[in-house]
């Protein structure tokens, strides 16, 4: 049980997702030349931008060892309301604003039940998932709403040579990274995720931290909804389904731990989202049967979570207090 060997094991476990990413790239690049082209990568990032933004919100929640299943439904409600407004020829900007407000309000509802009434996060967000999806289906009477071209500009337009979604993703990523690493709130999120009791003792208002992360997750889900809506051009009844799985997958692949306290928005979660999209994109280029995608993505998430729990149990084993500090340990501890 010598320490050098363990240090190597920890190194591998910590950046497993980086290794996976490199592996996937080499496999697909070897298979088909167009894979490594610039446009292909820009295309992958555009396609994964909405999932990445939602995954950023999900990372905040996972950092506090919580979970938010309602992101898919929040996207759908936001898109449905925006669709109704825009087809009722309201101008675009107020519609976008309404979307963001809806995201925050629904995030707030989750926060209220989870922090004030202390209900399990998983049940609350499962219930809001169905409440949200039911409300949006009622609003759109399960009919697809096609959006006027004005709205599509968000998805297809380019600014300074880069498609708009990449700029929006960069903006959200930048702000999230700044908040998590550079603000007191961000560092307190990590503290609360690591050990709630110690955080409370250290004087952190843990209730507010828990509430805030769900509001942020709701907001990011709304932004993700806008982007996805702009790219699709229409709100169909299946809008946003399973987005919560891909968001969790992206975060976990990016190294965010489900036990809380660990995880980075940049490069972690965003790379996780891009990784999933790259795999899907690569599979299409190899024209593998598309029904194979869910099998592969769920298998990858399972492996990522397995690595995460292995890391957690290894860490726990090492941090046990040593009784005999003297002679027989010095040799190991160097």
């Amino acid at each position, binding site marked *: 049980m010598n320490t050098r060997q363990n240090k190597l094991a920890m190194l591998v476990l910590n950046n497993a997702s980086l290794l996976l990413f490199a592996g996937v790239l080499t496999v697909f690049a070897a298979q*088909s030349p*167009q894979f490594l082209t610039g*446009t*292909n990568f820009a*295309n992958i990032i555009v*396609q994964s931008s909405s999932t990445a933004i939602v995954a950023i919100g999900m990372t905040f929640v996972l950092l506090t060892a919580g979970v938010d299943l309602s992101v898919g439904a929040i996207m759908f409600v936001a898109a449905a309301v925006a669709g109704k407004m825009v087809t009722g020829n309201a101008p675009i900007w107020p519609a976008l604003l309404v979307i963001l407000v809806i995201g925050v*309000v629904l995030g*707030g*509802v989750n926060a*209220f039940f989870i922090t*004030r009434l202390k209900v399990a996060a998983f049940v609350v967000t499962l219930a809001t998932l169905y409440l949200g999806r039911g409300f949006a*289906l009622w609003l759109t*009477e*399960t*009919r*697809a709403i*096609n959006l006027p071209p004005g709205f*599509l500009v968000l*998805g*297809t337009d380019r600014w300074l040579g880069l*498609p708009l979604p990449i700029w929006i993703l960069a903006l959200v990523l930048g702000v999230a990274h700044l908040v998590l690493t550079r603000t007191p709130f961000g560092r307190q999120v990590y503290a609360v995720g690591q050990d709630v009791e110690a955080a409370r003792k250290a*004087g952190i*208002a843990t*209730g*507010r931290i828990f*509430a805030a992360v769900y509001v942020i997750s709701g907001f990011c889900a709304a932004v993700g909804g806008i982007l*996805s809506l702009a*790219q*699709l*051009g*229409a709100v*169909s*009844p*299946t*809008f946003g389904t399973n987005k919560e799985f891909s968001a969790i997958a992206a975060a976990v692949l990016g190294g965010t731990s489900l036990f809380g306290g660990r995880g980075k928005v940049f490069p972690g979660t965003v790379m996780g989202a891009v990784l999933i999209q790259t795999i*899907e*994109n690569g599979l*299409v*280029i190899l*024209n593998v049967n*598309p*029904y194979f995608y869910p099998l592969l993505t769920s298998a990858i998430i399972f492996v990522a979570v397995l690595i995460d729990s292995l890391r957690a149990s290894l860490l726990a084993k090492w941090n046990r207090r040593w009784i005999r500090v003297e002679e027989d340990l010095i040799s190991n501890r160097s």
Partner: protein
Amino acid sequence: MKNIQIESTSQHCERDGLLSRKARRPLQCLYWKMFCWCFAPIWMLAAGLLLLLPMGCKKAQNSGSGGSGEPQLTIGVSFETLQTGFWVASLDAFKAECAKRNIKMIQAIADGDANRQIEQVKNFITRKVDGIVLVPKDAKACIPIIKAANAANIPIVLFNRPPDKSDAKSVAVVADNFALTRETVKYMIGEARKTGKKHKAMVLIGDLGDINAIGRRDGFDAAVKEAPDVVEVVARVPTEWNQEKAQAGVVNAFQANPDISFIFTSSDFLLPSIVSALKATGKYKKVGEPGHVFLGGFDGDATAYQMLKDGYLDATGVQDVYFEVEACLQAILDARAGRPVPETITDAGFVIHQGNLKEKAPRMWGANVKQ
């Protein structure tokens, strides 16, 4: 419930008083109180929804049973989904036709769940409807539904999607997907041959569980097989009637072979995805312009009509919805009157393209749907 919340909030502020200076603390508590106050109403709304529900329905119930003159017929219409414009237009057509014939219509949408559709139709039967119109989720799952209707000897007509072969008796009013698609694609190939170049083609396939989708795919293959010199199929994108899957498939197919210039979609409701992919790669050109990508579709919905008028869409196979709806209701009335009713009524439909746009437009259901 509410006052507990307030008192605990103020307590919450003191107990968790941050290490901040005295001045800042009341401000922070204000935020937190506001935060709780604005959610109290939502909590009330959820509770209210639960209580008011039964009362709400009572109103709806007794307004329906009015009716005048001889006993009004009641028909149950069960749709699998309203996901695409085609189904929405069909339901509206049914509403209009029933109103015209003074028939009371109850509707039920199963949102893609076969078991739920069975439940909904059984509920129709318990409410003793006089006839059932069914758009089945898939050809096999609808057999027990038809048997249930046969048992209650209520005439049942399947709209647009035929059942699998079985001993259950029902009438099916369907479009001839195979023939209509082959005609549409043949017209597109005719236009493509004029350019003299060989085109790489992409086809968007529908949900393989839906017989119509398979009929259209076979129609497309039949047409393409006759003109190998003009068209070569390089990409088959399965969409399962899901827009996100279609959009990703189209974009990635363009990645694999950027020079695709011939696209056919098994349903017009997927056209927006194709258009946004074409715009992203700058290939969205009008008919006749150099670099025009030949576009063809099926159903003939409002988007297709708009693109035809703007000159981007080459052709689309239109299902004659009005004919199909009349045929359904007539079949029910004939069956109730004991008159013999054929097992299948086919709607030939028609191909609409740049050439015959003006003349065929009024018959096209997509044309008179408000966008």
